[in-house]
């Protein structure tokens, strides 16, 4: 495990009181760093909305986002079990889990995931969501990886809950709703960009995120401006088929 990246990540996830803090960006850092630091291929994150609904707010790839959505649509899967119980849930080989999750297990395998670990985002009795880690190959998750993954989830949860409650207890709900709406804006922008450039949603998202970084803009802000038409993201179509900056650099099964 990259110790320097790990300590940088903890600093990043603690730093939630900065001006222009963006919950969506913050949670994307959590999923992306999970993939970079741990021996996993993908990560996804569900957060609870006061409407009583779980929402997919961040994912390290489109495949991870889709499998998270699948859990919500089918009301079944490790992330939901984890959220409802507030306890970690894992499966070392989804091929053996058809009894537990008859719809989720085959769908996850079809998406290329064989092992899954779900970690609660929890502070005392309050569970606000769950972080899902996916691996392509079967086998138990490394205990050190699980510990670090839970520590990342904990730091993020405390960053969201604790820091804000010191200011005003209503702020988390305000920010959460803003974040959920930002998520919708980003999906709308992905659709518009995917159609304009003739690319898929995953590529559209990478493109959008790269554009935000290049312009030093917040992702949700740039997405809003692009959908509003006040900002034109004229991009050479199909210029970057595989934007790799946020992906794990090494081979899929190379331990880190």
């Amino acid at each position: 495990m990259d110790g320097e990246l790990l300590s940088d990540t903890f600093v990043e996830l603690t730093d939630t009181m900065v001006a222009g803090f963006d919950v969506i960006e913050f949670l994307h850092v959590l999923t992306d760093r999970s993939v970079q630091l741990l021996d996993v291929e993908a990560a996804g994150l569900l957060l609870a909305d006061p409407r009583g609904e779980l929402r997919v707010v961040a994912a390290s790839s489109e495949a991870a986002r889709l499998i998270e959505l699948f859990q919500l649509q089918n009301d079944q899967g490790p992330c939901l079990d984890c959220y409802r119980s507030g306890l970690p849930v894992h499966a070392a080989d989804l091929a053996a889990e058809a009894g537990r999750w008859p719809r989720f297990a085959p769908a996850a395998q079809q998406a290329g995931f064989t092992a899954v670990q779900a970690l609660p985002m929890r502070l005392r009795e309050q569970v606000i969501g769950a972080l899902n880690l996916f691996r392509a190959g079967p086998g138990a998750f490394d205990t050190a990886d699980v510990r670090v993954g839970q520590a990342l989830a904990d730091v993020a949860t405390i960053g969201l809950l604790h820091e804000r409650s010191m200011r005003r207890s209503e702020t988390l709900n305000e920010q959460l709703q803003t974040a959920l709406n930002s998520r919708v804006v980003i999906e709308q922008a992905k659709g518009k960009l995917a159609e304009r450039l003739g690319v898929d949603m995953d590529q559209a998202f990478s493109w959008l995120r790269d554009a935000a970084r290049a312009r030093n803009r917040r992702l949700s802000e740039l997405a809003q401006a692009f959908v509003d038409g006040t900002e034109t993201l004229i991009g050479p179509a199909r210029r970057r088929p595989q934007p790799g900056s946020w992906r794990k650099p090494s081979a899929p099964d190379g331990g880190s």
Partner: protein
Amino acid sequence: MTTAVAPLDGDVRMTLSRQSRIWGLVAGQAASHGGPVSVSDACAAVVTAVQVTGAWLSAASGTESAGHLISVTDAVGERLAELQLTLGEGPSPDAAADGGPVLTSDLSETEADRRWPVFAPAARQAGAVAVFTFPLRIGAIRAGIMGLYRDRAGQLSHRQLGDVLLFADIAAILLISADQAGETAAGFGPGGQPADLAGHRAEIDQATGMLTEQLGVGITEAFIRLRAYAYAHDRPLGDLARDIVARRVRLGPDPVPSEDDQA
């Protein structure tokens, strides 16, 4: 420390029935006066459902979220809406700018005066002690603002907040639909209920974005056209959205100029 939010609802399956219950309250309000369901019904129903004193609702005009007043339940609500339109200051403009709710459980706290030096004292004088404003938005689509007030201090409970957000979702759809003559039913399933958006939200949002390009229209109209197409072809919105995202269905620009369609 976190005295904050009550433990969250564990059951995702609740959402649809909860959404149906809220829709039932809005529809019931409409039935009581015998007219078709409108945003005013959402405004009136939310007041009794979450135990606030009054509410107001304003529609967006252009990219301005707080445009003109559409509905109020009492004189204090009207005064609060008016004050903010006049002053350009208060929780409504802030909710519009931030894109998230602004929840103020006690206007007499110094933070309120610091944040809104003119509005806060004026609102207290008008008789409001707690004010909660909610932007009516679907991503980049801005429909307006819903405001609630109480004549006493106190937070919305976690359950009340969830309910208000569901009322706000319905109000947003009704406001957008109201712009389209004779199109109020689109997007509502059999029995007049809102379609289940929860599970297919992302595809609907992506498809809406794609339609802005396919049809060469703004995001609000793209959403209206998506729902109208689903309604006209008797298809669930989520299914249609998935087909559009998978590029199995494509909507061309309307051959008839859209101005002619609108009454």
